[in-house]
């Protein structure tokens, strides 16, 4: 019993250690409390607690089927919450539709991207800015971040390569000038070089002060970006802590980093 508690969320908890004061911050930008959710009456995410402070980058890691996607989609309002709640700043997100969560400044980049394939790059980006007036400055900053999108602004999204589509998905999310960017497996379908590039871009956004929450199977990449991470296993938070702590954790090293 004592052993299992030691392996549980207590021992490596960032909240309990001075390594990451952000987690203890009651004014966290995103606060997920005892959240459960799932599909067709069966919960896939179980009693998850998670916080993201403003300016922080947080990763949710875990193997395929651990519940990472379900957790993110529940936060974004795409999947109904069965128990617990999600707060964003002073607002309660639980119960709001996905479009209202988006309008509050939470941008979500799903693994499947959900681009508008028969529309041009420019139209996709314009739709990203739907809640606001058209904003040339944000568009310029997206083109600066992804020069490729600028070169292909007239091309249909559906005809672009996987890497370009990923850029467009992130670009579209940034067009809403989000306060929190949530990404689900941003490296899905990308060659290793492009995956590293994608994380370099996220690192740059983070450096500019954007708050980022990312779910990732590719644990080394995720830990290279994030200040803190949560390890999700069978829908529950198994471990949490700073990225450095988790990278040193024997369980994480064995299960996710391939180091024994």
């Amino acid at each position: 019993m004592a052993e299992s508690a030691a392996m549980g969320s207590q021992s490596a908890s960032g909240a309990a250690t001075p390594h990451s004061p952000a987690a203890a911050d009651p004014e966290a930008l995103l606060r997920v409390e005892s959240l459960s959710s799932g599909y067709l009456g069966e919960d896939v995410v179980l009693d998850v607690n998670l916080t993201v402070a403003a300016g922080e980058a947080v990763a949710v890691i875990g193997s395929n089927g651990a519940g990472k996607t379900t957790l993110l989609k529940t936060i974004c309002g795409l999947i109904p919450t069965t128990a617990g709640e999600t707060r964003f700043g002073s607002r309660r997100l639980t119960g709001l539709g996905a479009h209202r969560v988006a309008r509050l400044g939470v941008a979500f980049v799903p693994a499947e991207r959900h681009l508008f394939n028969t529309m041009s790059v420019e139209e996709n980006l314009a739709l990203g800015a739907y809640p606001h007036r058209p904003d040339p400055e944000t568009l310029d900053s997206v083109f600066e971040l992804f020069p490729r999108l600028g070169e292909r602004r007239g091309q249909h999204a559906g005809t672009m390569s996987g890497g370009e589509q990923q850029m467009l998905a992130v670009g579209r999310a940034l067009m809403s000038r989000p306060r929190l960017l949530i990404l689900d497996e941003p490296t899905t379908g990308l060659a290793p070089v492009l995956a590293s590039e994608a994380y370099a871009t996220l690192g740059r956004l983070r450096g500019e002060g954007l708050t980022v929450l990312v779910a990732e199977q590719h644990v080394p990449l995720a830990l290279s970006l994030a200040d803190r991470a949560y390890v999700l296993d069978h829908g529950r938070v198994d471990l949490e802590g700073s990225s450095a702590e988790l990278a040193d954790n024997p369980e994480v090293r064995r299960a996710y980093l391939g180091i024994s």
Partner: protein
Amino acid sequence: MKAVFLDGIVLGLQMGLLGVGLTLIYGLGGVLNLSHGQFAVLGAIVMARVLQHGASLWMAVPLGLLAAAAVAVLSDLTIMQPVYRLRGEARVLLGLLLMLGVGTIIDGYLEWKYPIEALNIRISGDPISIIGVPMRVGSLVASAIALAAGAALFVFLRYTTFGRATRSIIEDEEGARLCGINPALVRTLIFGLSGALAGLVAVSRAMTSPVISTAGVELTILALIVAVVGGLGSVSGAFVAGVLLGIVNTVSAFYIGTYITTIVLLAAAALTIVFRPAGILGRRA
């Protein structure tokens, strides 16, 4: 032959506009609006009644369009709500059954209250020659209305924020929600627009032949055929399909007989489903 062809285009533009209204609703909500023709007739009868009270066309037409749009919005906000909670095949089936019901109610009401009512709009003026064929002014105005509505719709969908949002839902509803777009609101407004377009079809049609109070079912079937041939969900496809089928309709009526035209049109729809399931343009939106 030239005259038959031109008549086909006149009819085809009306059919295109009819199909567009149906295809928009299908693209947005997966609902086959089988009362679309009845919305058109309802608008027509409202216009006819207003005209009988001595009002001008400028008064009657907006009121008729408004009536058609109002019934459409009302359907969306009430009877369609349980439909939107369903997914996939169940949504399509319940949607078309309920709208068939709405259409039947409108049909029944109009037949009971206004059995011999018809909208007939006469535009005076001498025939105008188009490539050597004298065309009635009514036919030309009717075509101009359909063309203008089609062009306005094109500009709306392509260049306005709300139009883009509409297309984005047709293309990927989840993606649209992530952009902050409320699909339910867009659906309701587009349902209203579709109703108004149905009313406009009635106006255009009444300039070439009377729109009688029992024409609803026939118009609904036409709309369905056009939308299927155009590829359900494709606005440009529906318009192109309408024009082509209009020509097919007039040509086959002229050379074979009126009795055969519905069969020919249905065959066109069936062949499209077999050989080009995505519609004649082969893509969406």
